[in-house]
């Protein structure tokens, strides 16, 4: 088990361009677990990465936005420990499991 990346964590988070968002609210309808709306209808997005079981819902929420204000962003994982130690050249132990690739294609790029 990789301690730094528990299996519940999808490794993605939702990013919003607030200059684009126009309070359509579809995202909160499709992903109420992570997105609520404020009193003016603008989304409040839960902090942190998307839990794995919600990733598909999150993808739908992102794709539902009529003005493409949302995107799924891969969260960079710390790579430092995967490199060999600078002084000794010894690779870290235990080795990290191979990175999971997302199952579906990435959302359209804005």
């Amino acid at each position, binding site marked *: 088990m990789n301690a730094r990346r528990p299996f519940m964590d999808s490794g993605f988070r939702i990013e919003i361009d*607030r*200059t684009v968002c126009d309070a359509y609210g579809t995202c909160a309808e499709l992903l109420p677990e992570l997105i609520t709306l404020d009193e003016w209808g603008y989304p*409040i997005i839960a902090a942190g990465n998307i839990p794995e079981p919600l990733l598909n819902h999150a993808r739908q929420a992102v794709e539902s936005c009529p003005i493409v204000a949302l995107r799924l962003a891969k969260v960079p994982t710390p790579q430092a420990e995967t490199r060999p130690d600078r002084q000794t050249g010894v690779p870290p132990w235990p080795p990290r499991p191979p990175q999971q690739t997302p199952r579906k294609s990435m959302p359209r790029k804005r």
Partner: protein
Amino acid sequence: MTARLLSGPALNLGAEPYDAHRQRLGALPGKAERAGLIPAIEAAGLLGRGGAGFPVGRKWASVAGRSKGQAIVLANGAEGEPMSMKDRVLMATRPHLVLDGVELAADAVGAKKAVLYIGSEHAGARVAMEAALRERPRVVDTRIVTPPVSYAAGEESAAVRFVNKGDPRPVTVPPRPFEKGIDGKPTLVQNVESLANAALIARYGAAWFREAGRAETRGTALVTVSGVTTPGVLEVELGTTLADLAAWTGGTASVGSPVLLGGYFGSWVAGPDAWQMPLDPAALRARGLAFGCGVVGFMGDSACGVAATARIMDYMAGSSAAQCGPCVYGLRAVADATARVATFAAHPDDLRRLRGWTESLVGRGACRLPDGTVGLLRSALTVFETDWAAHTAQRRCQVRA
């Protein structure tokens, strides 16, 4: 008071000419010595003076690492903070120190072009900088750009957008200007006071820079002091106390009166304890405060903190670039509610909603205008707690009874 940036001829004589500047401070160090400038700035511990306080050396290093000789330097003298005067005073009186800094920064990050970004309302500063550019040899291809009067125009992504497209509104980041800025090139956006400090570190070194300072963070800073007998811009050692500042500027009505620290993006502090704390970025951060751009606004005993805060909230709501919904509607709602409290017309749940907005509006804009605004509100709700209560419950002002 410790004059470094502002040493030399009296400030009321205006811009120091190039010859006098060179005679007083000597020429800039040669190419060989300049190679060590970024490490020297890091060793000096110089923090940016535009408000965010980001380490200057680290910023230069990250632009230099991406530059490939293509970077651009933007000297930020927009100074949109209504209570700050220090950038325009520096540009109007020591233009060549700023231009020295631009030249050194361009050299250090690998830039051939620079932009002097000077708020269009700062006519004196612009004239001085234009004249200074004509006086000295043209080492860097430098032009002057003047953004309109606006709080947000000085924010770094807004500055880059204005230079690129004539639109002074912030942009969603990343990419940040140091990655992709003017003409898509890595851009160093640096406050003019930070650049002037770099010009002194280049001449005298990090150890000299660190000789000044009364607390953890070293060096001097320009501060804009108001609400005192002789308001204006001073250069002081970091770590100076509010009590010292009050004493040097002719004093205020009473010790411990509320102070607006850091301007409209800052916080209210009050009490004799607050007057004794060092104006040191590290110590202030530990208290949840910020040195910001060095604004120190003493409030008179006869002024009402609620009314003063309501005026600031209204200004900030009007300063929204009108791009992000939570900023447009949130800051207007904050301004309206504070105005109702200040005029004894509060709705029953106004105070509760104001407290809620100090949490819910944080991080909800492309730039940090909502964060700065509700940060000031949060401090006002604490420092003037009994005043807010009196305004809402008894519908009277304790100060202006």
